[in-house]
């Protein structure tokens, strides 16, 4: 039996003056202990709703979910004693200092006064917040806020750590820092459920990925397995002159399994092929015959963007149901 499992969860929102939204439409998951599980999907796919159900914030209309054998609906308080939650909105009290926030969370987990204080000091040291520990969070940078938010989720050693879009809105440097932390937690054996709309993030952090769309899991597997489902490789060309683009597209068209994509500046084109190496050799030979100069040519495995497009028929950035999954679901 999986450590965290959800079966056929359904959640329906009834917004005023708007059609009913099936936020979760029969979603099932199972996460083995000690693994990082990535929930990948665009805005409005149902990622946050899934986390809200599993963290007892909302009740599913039907279906069941268990963590370590404890039913989320029947015994929410027992669940709350075991989980840590960090979210994209960095839910800490702006007016409290880093230490005060951590101490407040510790006391609300019902740690003793001394345990709570000691743990707060440990966590500010661990998360490199030592110098800022006695300053109100109000003045913290985005990256520091995420760290204090994550630290709040680690006041106890959680059976499952929920990270709801942990790097959304962070600058690239802070994002890399956050990834390092999550990787450390994973290698320390923490069970993590991570939601993200960044395909690169799921690829790097998650052992196992569920791609969700419109409240359902539409694909499941490791990043490699998902990429393999798209099949083949991608050939990319970058031309010296944009004038040669039609000829390059024509060459790609002959070997590709689909229509070639052309990049914004009109000097790069790519196509998915069944067999990478022979196709690349053929394209290069053809372009050399025509005397077309190349800046760069290469072959790569498909990205999770390709996977998403293939599985759903629309791109991952597509946020059509965006408004249905705000903070309060409002």
């Amino acid at each position, binding site marked *: 039996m999986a450590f965290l499992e959800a079966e056929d969860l359904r959640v329906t929102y009834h917004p005023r003056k708007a059609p009913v939204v099936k936020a979760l439409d029969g979603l099932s998951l199972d996460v083995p202990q000690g693994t990082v599980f990535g929930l990948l999907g665009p805005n409005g796919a149902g990622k946050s709703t899934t986390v809200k159900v599993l963290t007892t914030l909302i009740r599913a209309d039907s279906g069941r979910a268990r963590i370590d054998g404890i039913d989320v609906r029947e015994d929410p308080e027992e669940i*709350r*004693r075991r989980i840590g939650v960090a979210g994209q909105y960095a839910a800490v*009290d702006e*007016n409290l200092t880093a230490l005060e926030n951590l101490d407040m969370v510790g006391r*609300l987990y019902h740690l003793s006064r001394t345990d709570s204080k000691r743990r707060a000091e440990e966590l500010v040291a661990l998360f490199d917040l030592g110098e800022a520990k006695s300053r*109100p969070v109000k003045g913290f940078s985005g990256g520091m806020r995420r*760290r204090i938010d994550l630290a709040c989720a*680690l*006041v106890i050693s959680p059976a499952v750590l929920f990270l709801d879009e942990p790097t959304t809105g962070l600058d690239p440097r802070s994002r890399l820092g956050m990834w390092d932390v999550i990787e450390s937690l994973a290698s320390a054996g*923490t069970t993590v459920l991570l939601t993200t709309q960044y395909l690169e993030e799921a690829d790097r952090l998650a052992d196992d990925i569920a791609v969700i769309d419109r409240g359902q899991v539409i694909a499941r597997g490791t990043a490699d397995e998902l990429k393999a489902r798209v099949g083949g490789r991608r050939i990319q060309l970058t031309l010296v002159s944009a004038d040669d683009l039609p000829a390059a597209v024509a060459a790609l068209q002959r070997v590709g399994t689909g229509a070639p994509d052309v990049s914004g500046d009109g000097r790069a084109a790519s196509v998915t092929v069944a067999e990478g190496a022979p196709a690349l050799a053929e394209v290069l030979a053809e372009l050399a015959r025509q005397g077309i100069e190349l800046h760069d040519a290469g072959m790569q495995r498909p990205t999770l963007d390709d996977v998403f497009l293939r599985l759903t028929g629309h791109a991952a950035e597509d946020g059509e149901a965006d408004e249905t999954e705000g903070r309060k679901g409002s």
Partner: protein
Amino acid sequence: MTVAADRVTTSLEAAPVPREPSPLAAWFSDGWITTRRNLIKIKRVPDVLVFTTLQPIMFVLLFSYVYSGSIQIPGSDYKEFIMAGIFAQTVVFGATWSGYATAQDIRDGIIDRFRTLPMRPSAVLVGRTNGDLLINSISMVVMILTGLVVGWRVRSSLLEGLAGVVLLLAFAYALSWVMVFIGLSVRSPEVINNVSFIVLFPLTFISNAFVPSENLPTPLRIFAEWNPVSALVLAARQLFGNVPPGMQVGDTWTMQNPVQAVLIGIAVLLAVFVPLSVWRFGRIGSRA
């Protein structure tokens, strides 16, 4: 920033294990922790406190010196008459803060943090209303001192005077729970300000707070005599010994028995809105 994996491992192994205190102990502890959070906020963001103390001082001075020359209360001094009205108006509007702050906490996501912790749900709301009771108490002290400076006196006994203050604060506390419920139910904190403006302005001004209700046009007089704020003002005025002799207060039961009416009102508001707010708290987010 780098966090070494072995440090994380050690740290997680060293993490304390949550205790399971008795429900009552947990409730008191949670209530205190969330109250403390609000007290720290009062200390660190003094805007609220400054506003809730400066505004009443201005009201006391304004009514005492600007209006008292023109508004004649037979058998009494307008300053003495007006003070219970200003007290009531201030604490009633002060209760709005509970709703605003609750809605703000939801927007900030801190309520979601609380709701994923193994704490008593009602404790968050208790912490909120306790903090606001403190703010209202400070406002009261400031107003009483300002009132005494401009010449207001309690004409009854010290004990009755204290009872009047406690009654005002208790009513405000009950109203805080109503506002908390509204705060849990609206979509944004700004709505609270509009609601309080639309509801509380008529309630406080179409009452006996600033003028005797007997002089109002009949429809407004009837409204004023049934108005709970009128009962609160009259109750406080009676307890302070500030009711002008011979003033017609009105024939309604609430005007004839204002202290009892206010006590019943407090009990009803708490009995309805405490459970309702706790229920609502558990359902935040389950609507679109």
